[in-house]
């Protein structure tokens, strides 16, 4: 090691699977020189459950509860991506009301997931749970609404091939409207607490910069990519469902540091509120589920269906051989592909920054390990 005249010896620390702030069971072997990170080797696989293999023995509808458990903090998005892939493969039409419901629920899921990601990022900076508790209050309200809609708070099993499983009860609509009216003032509260805080600024500005070339070369996606200044969002650039009927902005960062990723997520929350408001005004009456046979048999072929999940581009690759279960089911995990840049992001920073940068990538181990 070259550091002036002092001879220092690097040592290896195992930020192991049991750690209060690696989101899930994630292990990193880090080589330190004093406090400075010299090398990072991520090791995951502690949450592998064999979802891709299990899916080969289940019918297309029975896989939906399985996809809930991939990115368990944004389960609706997983359901939606999978169901869209099957609909593409089997050419199943989706009624209008179901599309609107999917978008409302998907954007609510985005708000909930970003609340959690931001809250835990600030928690890792050290602000002893207080901003997290405030954000959790809003997330609890969202989870109550999901509970009213489909009976569960975390693993929803809500989408079906050809629509959604339930029509919302009549008391759901005023509750969503009220939530959407109150949400911007809560987001202002969070910004007051965090965005102008000098300590947060000095710890996140310029830290963990992801350059544009590296982001594109590594196939990053989601707010992680947009914070580096690249204007790419599947909702606008590769439109699926009926997103082309809504007006919303895509927040873009400039530097690609931790602060920009945090700001991108906060601004995306505001835009999601905007989308939900527009959707609430336009929802038509009608069917919420088209007539599909009980056991779906898609024609022989393969399909790749992808959506803009809160954490990035979540893709599902299905190969069918005209039987009731898929021949191959593969998930493109957004966070695992984002995480491949971890080494380049963190080398040269200190231990405290390593944790913060890792938190800003916003991983969920369920998706990485499947």
């Amino acid at each position, binding site marked *: 090691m070259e550091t002036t005249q002092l001879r220092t010896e690097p040592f290896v620390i195992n930020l192991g699977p049991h750690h209060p702030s690696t989101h899930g069971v994630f292990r990193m072997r880090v080589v330190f020189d004093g*406090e400075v990170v*010299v090398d990072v080797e991520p090791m995951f696989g502690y949450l592998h459950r064999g979802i891709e293999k299990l899916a080969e023995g289940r019918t297309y509808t029975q896989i939906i509860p399985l996809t809930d458990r991939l990115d368990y903090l944004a389960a609706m998005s997983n359901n939606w991506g999978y169901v869209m892939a099957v609909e593409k493969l089997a050419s199943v039409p989706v009624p209008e009301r179901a599309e609107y419901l999917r978008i409302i629920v998907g954007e609510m899921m985005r708000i909930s997931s970003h609340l959690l990601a931001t809250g835990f990022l600030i928690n890792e900076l050290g602000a002893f749970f207080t901003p997290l*508790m405030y954000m959790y209050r809003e997330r609890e309200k969202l989870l109550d609404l999901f509970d009213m809609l489909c009976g569960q708070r975390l693993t929803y099993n809500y989408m079906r091939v050809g629509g959604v499983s339930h029509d919302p009860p009549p008391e759901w609509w005023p509750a969503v409207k009220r939530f959407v009216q109150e949400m911007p003032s809560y987001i202002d509260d969070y910004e007051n607490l965090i965005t102008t805080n000098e300590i947060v600024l000095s*710890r996140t500005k310029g830290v963990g910069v992801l350059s544009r070339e590296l982001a594109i070369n590594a196939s990053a996606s989601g707010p992680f990519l947009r914070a580096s200044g690249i204007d790419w969002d599947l909702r606008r650039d590769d439109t699926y469902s009926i997103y082309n009927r809504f007006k919303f902005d895509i927040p873009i960062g400039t530097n690609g540091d931790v602060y920009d990723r945090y700001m991108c997520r906060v601004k995306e929350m505001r835009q999601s509120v905007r989308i939900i408001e527009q959707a609430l005004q336009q929802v038509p009456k009608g069917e919420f589920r088209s007539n599909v046979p009980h056991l779906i048999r898609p024609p022989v072929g393969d399909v790749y269906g992808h959506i803009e999940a809160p954490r990035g581009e979540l893709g599902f690759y299905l190969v069918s051989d005209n039987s009731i279960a898929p021949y191959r089911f593969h998930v493109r995990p957004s966070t695992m592909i984002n995480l491949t840049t971890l080494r380049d992001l963190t080398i040269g920073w200190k*231990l405290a920054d390593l944790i913060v940068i890792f938190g800003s990538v916003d991983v969920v181990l369920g998706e990485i390990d499947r």
Partner: protein
Amino acid sequence: MIDIDNLKAAAQAGQTTFPPDWPGANPWLHALVYIVAIIAFTLIMILAFIYAERRGVARFQLRLGPNRAGPEGVLQAVADLVKLLLKEDIVPTLADKIVHLLAPVVATFPAMMIFAVVPLWGSGALLSDLDVGTLYVLAISSFGVLGVFMAGWASSNKYALISAMRGVAQMVSYEIPLVMALLSVVIMAGTLSLNGIVDNQDIPYLLLQPLAAVIYFLAMSAEVNRSPFDLLEAESEIIAGYHTEYSGMKFALFYVAEYGHAVAGMAIFATFFLSGWKGPVLPPILWLAIKMLIAFFISFWIRATLPRLRVDQLMGLGWKALLPLAVINVVITSIEVLFWPDGLTMWILVPVNFVIAAALVYIWSRTVSLRGGRVEIRTRTEIKTA
């Protein structure tokens, strides 16, 4: 021996507090009574601080905090203590046994030793009225570093070692601003003895020396490892820092030691800046407790709100911001004390000092930046796969 006539006369005269040289001329009895009083006061204040922090921080976070053990949860600390007493004492195999055992002890007793020179319930009501009370306080508070370092070293755990190194660096670098801040109060009061400082405080020095108060509060938070300087036990990074490998009663001692240091620090703050035991109506010892709790309220309000600083930013803050400001404050205070005309009331100094403090902070915030950046790594090391 106990002077009964004196006590009776004092009671008839309506005095509600004990006279300062109670219970009499016998030094051993005096020492015994005060030792018991100090230990009782410290432990009760530690319990009160633990309760206040847990309920207070919980209320900041929109939840209730522990409210089941005892009426409204006052016995929660006792319940935790009983639980920790019954736990198994695990010592790592490669640990240095003697140092591992002594570290919590070394961390705890300085907190109580500081109270030997703090006046508790009146002028002269202390264990021993040292003429160099401030020097004693500063020397004893530097002891706390040793306990942290011993714990981190003896644990044979890399996390603990990182935390101990950070701790030594942090505590050593915040000693000097602490000393300088107290020095300006000493210059204004004219005496090093804490008893004398409280006696001379007609106007609380918080108003006369705002910059010194802020610097002392920040430096004391760093010495005591409270947020935003609590890197030593940064739970999200190094799990528990220097007390990772401690369990059972030793861990309970570290817990008590942490709050004990906070109690001692707040007591010094109350004595130097908030005029100690002085106050109307209520008994003076209650006033001391109330002032300590108010200072602690601000401390845990900050803890509930702010994230923590990184270690190089913390050192930058200590050396580049607090130290020059403290030195400049000493110079300004000396000039004021030297050239203050006799007879002019000290209240005029209050707005003058506030304006000077605000101007200094403003100039400093524009010129100094806590820059800490990325280190260039040029050579690659090979990780030995074991």
